[in-house]
C-alpha cells in the first residue's frame, strides 16, 4: 500500500497551486461569476500552454499522456482556487467522451484543438427531468435519410455558450430497456435550430438551456454506435463524478484553512476563539471530513487510473464526499462566525460551490442507491 502521490504528481500539484494563486485570485473568481463568458481568453491560453487541457489525452492526439490520477491532482487545485471556466466541461465531459467514443478522425481533429485551447466541447445530457438515469433521456433524434433530426430541450448544460461542439445524448429508440436506444451525436453548436439560453445559478457557473429545434445532424456525427450510447455516458459520468469529488476536496482544504486562520486570530473573552473546545471539536470534525474525503477520492481515482473495477468505490466516494464536504464547509462557517457570512469573505464561495458540485453527476442518495445495487441488495 502506498497512500502518497508520486514525485511528478507532487510537482504538478505545486506548480498548479503556484499558478492559480497568481492567476485565479478570489476577486477574479467573483468577476467571472458575473461575466457572461465566465473565463478570459488570456487565462485559458496560459492554461493551454501549461499543457493542462491536453494532460490526459494521448500524445498522438496532441496531449501529454498523463493519467486520470494526474488529472485529479490538477482538479484538487482547481477546486482550491474555485477556478472558473470550461475546463471541466471541455476536457472531462467533452474530451473524455471523445476519447471513449470518437472515431479516429474526430479525435485527431478535436482533441488536439482542445489541448491547444482552441476548441470547446460540452456534453448535453440532463433534461427537465433533471437526473442521471437513462429513463430521463427523452430528447429525440429521428432518422431522416442520411441524417438525424434532433428535437427537444437539454437543461443544465455547462458552458454551452462557449462550445464549438455539443455532444447531445438523444433517444433513438423507444423500448422496455431504457439503456438501449440512446445515441451520442456530435453537434456543431452553430447548427441551425440550436438555441442556447444561459441560466443564472447560485454557484455562478455557466449552465444553459439548450433547445434543439429540429437540428439536422449528419449520420457520420454519431459517436460510438447507434442506440448503444448509454454505456459510454455511464463511463464518462463515473469519471466526472470523481472529478467533482477532487474539486470538492480542494475546496474543502481551502475552507479548513480559512477556518483555522480565523479561529487562531480572532479573540473573544480575552482568548483566541480557537482555544474553545466547542470550536476545536468543530475543527476536528472538519479535518476528519476532509481527510476521509481525500482518501476516498484518491482511492477511486487510483482505481480508475489503473483500470481496476471501481463501480463500488465510485458510488461510495461520490456519496461520501458530497455529504462530507458540504458538512465541512457549513462547520467552517460556524467556526468563523458572522464575518464568514459576508460576501467579501471567501468562505461563501465554497459554501455555494460545494453544494452545486454535490448535485452534479448524482447526489449522495443517488450514489447510495447505485451502491445498494452493487451490494446485491
Amino acid at each position, binding site marked *: 500500500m502506498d497512500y502518497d502521490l508520486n514525485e511528478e504528481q507532487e510537482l504538478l500539484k505545486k506548480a498548479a497551486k503556484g499558478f492559480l494563486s497568481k492567476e485565479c485570485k478570489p476577486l477574479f473568481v467573483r468577476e467571472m461569476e458575473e461575466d457572461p463568458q465566465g473565463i478570459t481568453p488570456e487565462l485559458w491560453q496560459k492554461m493551454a500552454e501549461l499543457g493542462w487541457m491536453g494532460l490526459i489525452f494521448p500524445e498522438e492526439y496532441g496531449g501529454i499522456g498523463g493519467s486520470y490520477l494526474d488529472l485529479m491532482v490538477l482538479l484538487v487545485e482547481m477546486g482550491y482556487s474555485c477556478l472558473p471556466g470550461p475546463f471541466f466541461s471541455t476536457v472531462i465531459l467533452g474530451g473524455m467522451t471523445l476519447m471513449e467514443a470518437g472515431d479516429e478522425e474526430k479525435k485527431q481533429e478535436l482533441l488536439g484543438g482542445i489541448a491547444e485551447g482552441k476548441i470547446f466541447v460540452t456534453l448535453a445530457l440532463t433534461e427537465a427531468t433533471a437526473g442521471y438515469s437513462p429513463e430521463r433521456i427523452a430528447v429525440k433524434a429521428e432518422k431522416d435519410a442520411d441524417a438525424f433530426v434532433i428535437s427537444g430541450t437539454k437543461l443544465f448544460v455547462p458552458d454551452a455558450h462557449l462550445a464549438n461542439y455539443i455532444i447531445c445524448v438523444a433517444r433513438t429508440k423507444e423500448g422496455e430497456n431504457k439503456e438501449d436506444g440512446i445515441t451520442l451525436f456530435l453537434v456543431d453548436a452553430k447548427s441551425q435550430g440550436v438555441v442556447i439560453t444561459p441560466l443564472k445559478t447560485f454557484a455562478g457557473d455557466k449552465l444553459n438551456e439548450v433547445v434543439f429545434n429540429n437540428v439536422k445532424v449528419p449520420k457520420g456525427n454519431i459517436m460510438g454506435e447507434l442506440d448503444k450510447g448509454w454505456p459510454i455516458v455511464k463511463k464518462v459520468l463515473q469519471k466526472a463524478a470523481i472529478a467533482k469529488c477532487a474539486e470538492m476536496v480542494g475546496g474543502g482544504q481551502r475552507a479548513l484553512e480559512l477556518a483555522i486562520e480565523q479561529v487562531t486570530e480572532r479573540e473573544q473573552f480575552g482568548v483566541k476563539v480557537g482555544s474553545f473546545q466547542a470550536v476545536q471539536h468543530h475543527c*476536528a470534525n472538519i479535518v476528519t471530513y476532509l481527510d476521509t474525503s481525500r482518501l476516498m477520492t484518491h482511492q477511486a481515482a487510483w482505481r480508475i487510473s489503473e483500470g481496476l473495477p471501481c463501480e463500488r468505490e465510485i458510488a461510495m466516494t461520490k456519496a461520501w464526499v458530497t455529504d462530507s464536504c458540504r458538512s465541512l464547509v457549513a462547520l467552517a462557517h460556524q467556526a468563523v462566525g458572522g464575518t464568514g457570512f459576508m460576501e467579501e469573505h471567501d468562505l461563501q464561495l465554497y459554501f455555494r460551490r460545494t453544494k452545486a458540485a454535490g448535485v452534479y453527476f448524482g447526489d449522495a442518495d443517488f450514489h447510495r442507491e447505485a*451502491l445498494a445495487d452493487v451490494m446485491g441488495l
Partner: protein
Amino acid sequence: MDFEFTKEEKALQEEVREFMKKESTPEMLKETEDMGDIYGGPEGRKIIRKMAAKGWLTPTWPKEYGGLGLSDVASYMIREEMGYHGLPFGFVAAHMAGPTILRFGSDEMKKKWLPRIASGELEFALGYTEPQAGSDLSALNLRAEDKGDYFILNGNKLFNTSCHIADCHWLACRTDFDVAKHKGVSMMIVDLKSPGITISPLITMAGWQTNEVVYEDVRVPKENLVGEKNKGFYYLMAALDFERMFPLGRYHRVFDELVEYTKETIVDGKTLSKDPLIRQKLAQLSTEIEVTRLLYYQLAHILDKGGIPNYQSSMEKTFATECAQRIVNVGMDILGLYGQIKEGSKWAQLKGKVEKFYRTSIVETIYAGTSEIQRNIIAQRGLGLPR
C-alpha cells in the same frame, strides 16, 4: 499510489483466513464474545498460541524476539481478520506493552519478556485508570515506594479489564509526589499473583467483566521497572498511541450478516433489501466501513514509511468506534421488535448478536481515550490550535 495489498500480503491474508476458519471452535468463539474480545481465557490461549507460533501475533517484531519482520500493513491486516473471525483481538502485551518495551525497555527486559509475549504465553492487563484518574491520567496516584532492590505498592485501580485472566499488570504508578504530576509516574510489570493484590469483578452492561484492583503492600522487583524511573508518563503515552487504532473487523462481520439477513427476510411480500430506506442506510454504512478501512491502513502506511502517526490515530479510533455504533444501531432498527430477543430463543435473529454488540458498542467511544479527548488531540496536535 496503491490501495491494495501486495501479492505476498494477499497470500498471507488467505493463509490467515484459512487458519482462523479451521482452528476456530465454538467454545473459543463463545469465550471470546463472553469476555469482550480480550485475550487470556483458556480457549483463546489455545488458538492464539498456535497462531503466535507462526509469528502472526507480533509480525512486525524482529525475528530474535519472535516476530517475522513483516510490514505494519500485514500486521494490521491480521488484526482485522482476527476481529472479523471472532478471535480475541484485544492484546495488551503483544500490541500495547510489547511495542513500548521494544522501544524503551532495556536489553535485559526485552530478552526476558518479548519472546514470551510473542509466543502468546503471557498476557498483560492495562493498569492506568484509577477512581480519580480517568481521562486525566496524570492524576493517578497508586504509590510505589522505592526500597532499593524493590518497590512497595499501595493504592487502587479501576476498570482494569483483563486482570482476572491475564498474567501480569502493565501498571502505571506514582514514584514521585513532589514534582509536576506527569513527571512522577513510572511504568512497571507486576505479576498479578503477587501477594497483596485483590481483584474484584465489575460487570458491565455488555455482560462481560472488568475489575477493581487493590494493591496492599505489594512487592515488585526493581528489574520490573520499564525504562527509567519517573519517565513512565512518556511510555504510557507511547503505549496509548499503540492502543489507539481500532480494527473494525468485529462490527464489519455484524454488518455483513445484517446485509445477508435483509436479503433473506421477506416482509410484506418483498425482501427487506428492496426497501429504499434500508438500502440507503446499508449503503451508507458500507461506505463508512470503507472510509474506516482507508483510515486504518493509513496508520500502517505511515508506520511502514518510518513515521509515527500523529492525529491520524485519534481520527481512526474515533471514526471507527462511532461507525461501530452506527452499524449496530441501524442493525437494531432493521431487526425491529426482533432486535430485543437474546441468543437462545428460537425467535432470536442472528443469534442475538446485534443486541449484544449494541450493548458493547457504547464503551468503544469511551475507553482508550474518549471521543472528546481524541477530538482535542486532532485539534491541538493535528491542527495546532491552542491548548
